[in-house]
């Protein structure tokens, strides 16, 4: 039977198992929105297209499925760019559908026209302009396949209005044939064998874990591997939830705002095993002094990540799950050697424990003023392990990473690579839409929150009970911190001088607003906020000039940490 392009689109989404999409209607997608009324797919109307993409991204990070967003041509499509770039930097599988002006008008500066394929080329894994309705089903099949396989990423499909209206026989292909795209799945056996030998010979090993472990659902394999060889594990921001922070082998986060002991361990290690990480500049600090004594094994599905920033002694390209399983198997066959290695590395673990004792993660508590770290600790105390925490970007993000003990994968959603303020609220919206029963909390600052605060309306409309924690210091705190440390306290444009009444703002949208101004109010506000049905804003008036510490100043080595103000 013949179907229209917009019907084919929705059929394909259904066949891909998509249950929820996030979007915003407009002139060039009006046909799709009309057909949506007859489709089983649930659509969530955000209040901005950027938020629709972040919501799809939050949905994808929380579930592991491909997130889908829909926007109209021109401004609708350009509004999605930050969302797409955010997903691209963090390798999140998304399919974004944008409307386009009719093919005959493309290039004519038509109303609400933008060259979306051109604009999104550098921030998508791949993109498609559909010129013939007969190609649509094949392109969508490919789009989902490309988004979720290999190193995942966003794929955009630009769909002109006349293609949506044209008809074609519909059949969804079973397979994908792309001669230029064949991601390596299994790691090279000889390389894995070499890795096993290097690991057995190591005396100061450190496992450095990136977001790839979360993306490939390899947390169990990672734990098996780490416990087998008794090597300490440090994670990036993106891998925060992949290895339980309370685990005795956990070093917490490394890098600019990482723990003292993680950075010292990396600096003194003789073997660094990088697993699904990409040696970001916020992780390595000064490259010349990064892990100077270590041989480096780098396991990653993306060959372009390897040797991009640092020299690598042994690259292994492949899916982490597969490589880690093989590695554990190969090592497991050598119990005696493992036992000897574990024995030989006892001193190393002791050295690390000493660093942990010398400089644990800490902050100066206060009885009179709310310390932001205290709020984070209290939230941890009062929530379950499966609570999903999202953040915006800035100080509150780092405090959450430092003081929240994540233990389950896909429970920490944060914009790591692009560092997008305004990400957390819509991402929480997407995660809550995927898991209506779970506790979803957006930890935010007063600056970031205002970048997408309009999404309060979406939360209330769809009864998505996201709890929003605002650590309000009336500053753009992270930039202020840099100005304090590196620009002689010249606070240029970082003071948010207009105090916002976030309680009233919540009420204006029909949500609940709570506020704590002293430390003794904190616990009650959190308890009440978590118990209150529906979306809640909990505002905490926190110490205004608290800094995120420890800190590796930009351009310094990981061993040159500033530990206290």
């Amino acid at each position, binding site marked *: 039977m013949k179907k229209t392009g917009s019907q084919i689109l929705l059929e394909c989404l259904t066949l891909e198992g998509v249950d929820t999409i996030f979007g915003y209607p407009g002139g060039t997608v009006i046909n799709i929105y009309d057909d949506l009324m007859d489709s089983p797919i649930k659509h969530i109307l955000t209040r901005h297209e950027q938020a629709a993409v972040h919501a799809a991204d939050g949905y994808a990070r929380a579930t592991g499925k491909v997130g889908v967003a829909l926007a109209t041509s021109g401004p609708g499509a350009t509004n999605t760019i930050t969302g797409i770039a955010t997903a691209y930097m963090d390798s999140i599988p998304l399919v974004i559908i944008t409307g386009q002006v009719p093919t005959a008008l493309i290039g004519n500066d038509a109303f609400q026209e933008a060259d979306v*394929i*051109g604009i999104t*080329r*550098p921030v998508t*894994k*791949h993109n498609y*302009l559909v010129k013939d309705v007969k190609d649509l089903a094949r392109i969508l099949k490919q789009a989902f396949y*490309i988004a979720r396989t290999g190193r995942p990423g966003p794929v955009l499909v630009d769909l002109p209005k006349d293609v949506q209206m044209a008809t074609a026989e519909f059949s969804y292909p079973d397979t994908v044939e*792309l*001669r*230029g*795209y064949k991601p390596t799945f299994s790691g090279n056996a000889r390389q894995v064998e070499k890795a096993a030998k290097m690991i057995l010979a190591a005396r100061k090993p450190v496992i450095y874990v990136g977001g790839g472990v979360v993306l490939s659902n390899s947390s169990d394999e990672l734990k098996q591997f780490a416990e087998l060889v008794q090597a300490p594990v440090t994670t990036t921001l993106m891998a925060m939830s992949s290895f339980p922070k309370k685990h005795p082998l956990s070093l917490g986060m490394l890098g600019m705002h990482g723990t003292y002991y993680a950075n010292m361990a990396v600096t003194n290690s003789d073997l660094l095993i990088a697993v699904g990480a990409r040696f970001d500049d916020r992780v390595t600090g000064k490259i010349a002094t990064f892990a100077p004594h270590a041989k480096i094994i780098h396991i990653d599905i*993306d*060959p*372009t990540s390897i*040797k*991009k920033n640092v020299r690598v002694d042994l690259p292994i390209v492949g899916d982490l799950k597969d490589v880690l399983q093989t590695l554990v198997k190969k090592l497991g066959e050598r119990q005696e050697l493992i036992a000897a290695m574990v024995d030989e590395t006892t001193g190393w673990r002791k050295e690390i424990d000493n660093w942990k004792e010398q400089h644990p993660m800490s902050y100066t508590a206060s009885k009179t003023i709310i310390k932001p770290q205290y709020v984070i600790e209290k939230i941890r105390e009062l929530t379950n392990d499966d609570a999903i925490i999202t953040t915006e970007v800035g100080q509150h993000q780092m405090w959450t990473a430092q003081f929240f003990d994540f233990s389950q994968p896909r429970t920490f959603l944060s914009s790591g690579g692009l560092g997008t303020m305004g990400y957390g609220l819509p991402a929480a919206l997407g995660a809550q839409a995927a898991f209506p029963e779970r506790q979803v909390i957006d930890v935010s600052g007063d600056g970031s929150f205002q970048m997408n605060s309009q999404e309060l309306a979406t939360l209330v409309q769809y009864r998505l009970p996201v709890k929003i924690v605002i650590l309000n210091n009336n500053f753009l705190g992270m930039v202020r911190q840099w100005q304090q440390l590196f620009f002689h306290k010249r606070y240029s444009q970082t003071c948010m001088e207009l105090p916002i009444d976030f309680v009233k703002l919540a009420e204006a949208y029909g949500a609940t607003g709570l506020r704590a101004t002293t430390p003794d109010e904190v616990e009650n506000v959190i308890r009440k906020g978590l118990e209150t049905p529906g979306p809640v804003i909990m505002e905490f008036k926190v110490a205004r000039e608290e800094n995120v510490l420890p800190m590796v100043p930009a351009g310094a080595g990981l061993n040159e940490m500033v530990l206290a103000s």
Partner: protein
Amino acid sequence: MKHIISVLVENEFGVLSRVVGLFSGRGFNIESLSVAPTLDPTISRITIATSGDDQILEQITKQLNKLIDTIKIIDFTGQDFVEREMSLIKVTAEDNTRAEVLRIVDIFRGKIVDVTPRSFTIEVTGSPTKIDAIIELLRPMGIKELVRSGPVVLGRGPKGWKGA
């Protein structure tokens, strides 16, 4: 360092801009570029000459491989290859210089492909250095217009990439 890279890609719209975007996005100039379909009309062969830091070029090559539409990359750096470029040169040829232009064309085994009482248009093929050389010799005669194709290359030896 100078690099010549051949990229075999899907013969579809938009692919070329993905390829050149990887260079321009890093501030790399492409010195020359030639594109045409291969024996298999669904595949195009792009030959790119560029120069720059080896490590960044290695990164670009890896990124080129990562493009969905890229089928194969051949980096000719450090390899033995045949390199040919074609040029059409319109040169002033009046009574006093006509004979000299013809002699130069003959030395370089070029061809005259268009003649007027005041000009010759010359076709010449060879390595880029050969083209450079004939241009230098013709320059004093007065070059009116010139076009160079940029080099195309194939690896030496019996091995070929099938289908292209």
